[in-house]
């Protein structure tokens, strides 16, 4: 059920802009799938779904990655960061603090559907905040990004810029 809500909208953005994608459940992603992909987007999921926290996502390597909501939490956790329960649901203002390839606006509104944030910043450069909570990051030396909000709802340019940027 969550695929229609969290994956299909991203697939539509990718395809409407003339790109193709392979959709795989994170539980079934192989190293071969990763090898064949140029870039990887890890979508969000329903608010009550925490299965992704049980996986260590060993297939993540040096390919550019954009993690959205649960995907971003998972990336933060993968690099040794600590997650904490914090509910953010609805539309909130995001303030950009670091220039980056995904969005140029200094301030924008985003849709959040989130129950966990990260409280440490190991290997992460914070790109944006909402009420002092870091909500967008880039890995310090890899092309790996995370957004705790859902860019597919109000900030589709983030997804598009991730796809078209050359690294």
């Amino acid at each position, binding site marked *: 059920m969550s695929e229609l809500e969290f994956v299909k909208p991203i697939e539509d953005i990718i395809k409407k802009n003339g790109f193709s994608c392979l959709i795989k459940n994170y539980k079934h992603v192989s190293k071969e799938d990763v090898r064949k992909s140029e870039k990887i987007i890890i979508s969000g999921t*329903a*608010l009550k779904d925490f299965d992704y926290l049980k996986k260590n996502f060993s297939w993540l390597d040096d390919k550019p990655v954009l993690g959205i909501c649960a995907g971003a939490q998972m990336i933060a956790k993968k690099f040794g960061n600590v997650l904490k329960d914090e509910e953010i*649901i609805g*539309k909130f203002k995001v303030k950009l603090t670091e220039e980056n390839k995904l969005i140029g606006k200094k301030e924008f509104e985003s849709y959040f559907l989130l129950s966990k944030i990260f409280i440490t910043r190991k290997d992460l450069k914070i790109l944006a905040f909402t009420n002092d909570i870091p909500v967008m990051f880039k890995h310090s030396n890899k092309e790996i990004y995370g957004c705790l909000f859902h860019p597919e*709802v109000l900030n589709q340019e983030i997804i598009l810029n991730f796809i078209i940027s050359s690294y």
Partner: protein
Amino acid sequence: MKLALMFSGGKDSCLALQKTMRMHDIVCLVSIISKNQESYMFHVPNIGMTKLQANCIGLPIIQKFTEGKKEKELDDLKEAFIEAKEKYKIEGIVTGAIRSVYQSTRIQKICRDLDLWCFNPLWLKDQIELLKELLDNKYTVIISGVFAYPLNERFLGRIIDKKIIGELETLGKKFKLNPAGEGGEIETTVLDAPFFKRKIEILDYKSSYNNNSGVFDISIAKAVKK
């Protein structure tokens, strides 16, 4: 998973129901009947038809009345979900929300408070694709409300077909309307769908239109054999 569907009797909730039925058990419908004609949260035209529609589908329905006052209507919705949880042991709610962050935020928060899953299978769906999906699935859907210029009385009571989808698509581009009415421009009522065991026949109605706003109000209808 046992789920309840927020049911307005319109195209979006019916399509959400059809998509969910393939994967989960919808065990009841929940309808909120709002007295506020301008509710941002709830569909208003022909909401009184939901009992007959539920009967045609063959599912029980929980109907709650609300004055439609901004935050109080959310308490009424919450009570309906609590009743569904107690009576039908539901684990989650399904909605037909497509793009309304306002509606979605409020429903997600209520579900969170009640420890319920919340699914939105039409979320961000292309609106023309959605209308075409209704045709492909042989739905009978009428336009029961128009609330934006240049939609006028000519649209009221019309069945959604290829021709009207073309018109809505053209008007959508020209006047920046959501062609499927997700911004509240149009409301619909479903008379038949693949999962309806019986269909609805309209026996009497009243159509009214004034100042870019009109309603096709079904006053008498009955369930008939398909």
